[in-house]
């Protein structure tokens, strides 16, 4: 047990752990994380198997990384606890009487004599120290008077507060890891979904994408209603950076998508030898429509948002974004098919129409409308409040550790032959230069005492 405490309170261990954790974190940024095991083998060959085996491919969730963090946390706990009780004792039950040689080993010190009585000297010194916000303690022993003056005691505990904050953050991380959960919910307008693991439902009233003048996406806005037992209780517009919180769940706008199952397509029909001829029609998929004033029917049989010809010559979509929209149209005269083929929104002059019969009609895919759905991420993260508390403690602790240096002055006063001898020693945890000049001011004022 003793050697266990010895081992885990050592700062050397902390340094070794810090180095190992830092180096392994680095590895995780160079090896892509969380892909499938096959991908690594395909990419790195034999090495891929090794990476999989060492869990370097899911490093931050691997047992050994978590174990390192656990050791690190244990290290902080043991180290802090071990140092804390002597520190508390020193702060709140300090030894006031000191040997003169104790003051003499301090870096900042002074010895002086005056011809006043001890009582007067002491009162003068106390007044000076109090005016500089020192808190005083006093005792007497063997004709000597001892003063202990200190200020900004919290500075001593800065590092401990930081460490406590870090532990709280690590605890929050563990709680998030165990109890947290997230799920993407896909809504189209009007749809009602059960929130997993919750008692309430969500309905998407409205979904809008806002654009900048240059066409880039400015924002996605989902108007969501929370329903408890089918009664609406809350309505809020969720946008990126503005989530909705309800009963421990948080809902984020995480993305959007297109519903390509039933788009409607706008087609312009022109005649090659009649520039004034223009007919616009809007079609649903597989809906056969008579061209106004003509004896021809057209239908859109297929719509592809991101047209591409695959390796084997097959037609597919590269993505679900409308990057290269294409429609497959067919034309009929009575029951006879007269043409069919692909037209492209991005390339109006290019088509792949195959005609059975002579026609001077030309078709352009002008526009399309498809439903959009909103992707909302639902998450519950019971660790998150620990994180915020931990961050606050850490910042407060850093402030105290660096900018609230404890200062301590010890004084021994002794009266002999109507003279008073004073030995002063001082200690500051940080910014010693500033302390030295304060210390000098105190000794100067002692010398001037009348």
């Amino acid at each position, binding site marked *: 047990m003793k050697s266990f405490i010895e081992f885990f309170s050592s*700062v*050397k261990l*902390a*340094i070794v752990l*810090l*180095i190992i*954790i*830092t180096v392994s*974190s*680095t590895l*995780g*940024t*160079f090896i892509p*994380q969380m892909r499938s095991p096959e991908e690594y083998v395909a990419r790195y060959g034999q090495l891929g198997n090794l990476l999989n085996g060492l869990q370097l491919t899911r490093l*931050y969730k691997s047992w050994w990384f978590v174990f390192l963090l656990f050791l690190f946390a244990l290290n902080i706990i043991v180290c802090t606890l071990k140092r804390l009780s002597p520190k508390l004792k020193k702060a709140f039950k300090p030894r006031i009487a000191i040997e003169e040689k104790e003051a003499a080993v301090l870096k900042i010190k002074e010895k002086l004599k005056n011809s006043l009585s001890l009582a007067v000297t002491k009162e003068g010194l106390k007044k000076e120290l109090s005016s500089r916000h020192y808190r005083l303690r006093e005792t007497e022993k063997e004709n000597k008077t001892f003063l202990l003056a200190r200020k900004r005691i919290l500075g001593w505990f800065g*590092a401990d507060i930081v460490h406590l904050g870090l532990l709280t953050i690590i605890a929050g*991380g563990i709680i*998030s890891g165990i109890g947290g959960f*997230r799920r993407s919910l896909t809504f189209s307008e009007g749809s009602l979904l059960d929130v997993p693991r919750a008692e309430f439902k969500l309905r998407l009233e409205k979904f809008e994408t806002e654009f*900048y003048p*240059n066409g*880039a*996406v*400015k*924002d*996605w806005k989902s108007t969501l209603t929370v329903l408890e037992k089918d009664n609406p209780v809350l309505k809020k517009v969720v*946008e*990126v*950076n*503005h*989530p909705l919180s309800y009963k421990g769940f*948080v809902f*984020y*706008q*995480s993305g959007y998508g297109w519903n390509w199952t039933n788009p409607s397509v706008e087609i312009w029909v022109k005649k090659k030898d009649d520039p004034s001829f223009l007919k616009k029609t809007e079609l649903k998929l597989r809906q056969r429509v008579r061209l106004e004033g003509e004896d021809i029917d057209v239908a859109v049989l297929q719509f592809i948002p991101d047209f591409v010809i695959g390796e084997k010559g097959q037609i597919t979509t590269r993505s679900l974004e409308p990057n290269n929209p294409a429609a497959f149209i067919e034309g009929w005269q009575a029951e006879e098919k007269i043409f069919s083929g692909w037209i492209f929104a991005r390339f109006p002059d290019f088509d792949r129409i195959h005609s059975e019969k002579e026609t001077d009609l030309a078709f352009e895919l002008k526009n399309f409308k498809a439903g959009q759905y909103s992707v909302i*991420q639902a*998450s519950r*993260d019971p660790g*998150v409040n620990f*994180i*915020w508390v931990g*961050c606050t403690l*850490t*910042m407060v602790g*850093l*402030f105290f550790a*660096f900018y609230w240096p404890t200062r301590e002055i010890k004084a021994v006063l002794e009266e002999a032959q109507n003279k008073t001898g004073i030995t002063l020693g001082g200690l500051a945890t*940080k910014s010693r230069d500033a302390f030295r000049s304060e210390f000098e001011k105190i000794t100067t004022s002692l010398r001037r005492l009348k």
Partner: protein
Amino acid sequence: MNESTFFLITFILYIFSAFFYFSFLFSKKENLARIGFNLAFAGLIIHTLALIWRTVESGHAPFTNMYESLSFLSWASILAYVLIEWKFKIRKAGPYFLLIVIALMALASSPLMPKEANPLMPALQSYWLWLHVSVTLLGEAFFAFAFITSIMYLVADSNEKKGSAKKSGLTAEKLDSISYRCISIGFPLFTLGGLVFGMIWAYKAWGSYWSWDPKETWSLITWFVFALYLHTRIVMGWKGRRSASIAIIGFLAAIFTYFGVNYILAGLHSYA
């Protein structure tokens, strides 16, 4: 007059400032250093105007692409420099530090960096963008200064050991202590801006305060290196060469977090 004119004037002022500082190094005339400092200060003021101009014109924080971010980092570095110089009066670090700033400004004005202000993508439209980036970069500016003083320490220390050190001026010991003071300013700023504000913003925008994306991980790595610096120094009493080396590694990690992650590693942060 527009933003790029202000930027150019600033750049020229920094170059002149460095020029005077270097003349001071060679001639040892104090008033040359004073001129250098005043030029850097004038540059800071014009630079501030350039940043304000940019903000008003684009309607968003002046650090949403690499050009803006580099310009802001240069500004933060000069700001840090003015504060440090005012507090510690170490003229001799000025010329070297200005070289870093000039390199950043040159990179910002290179044709590789698109200058136009683009409208903000949805995730960036948050006031946490301001807090996160500005505080982090200010912290990094202090790390940059500690980097310079650490290198100067290594040189001064080996000169002192060889006995060829000049008696007066900046001793190795003083440089060591200034590195530490800079890190003790940079560390809390970096913790607050890079990690705390970063986590808050990630939670608001992505719904998760930490996702081990490469930029996050590299910020953490940088932070760990400086934690290492503090502990070896405070608890184990390391000083001097070893401390200086860790401070140098820490700054290199910060630089990698800033540039390397964007150009070498990809992740959620790849837009900034």
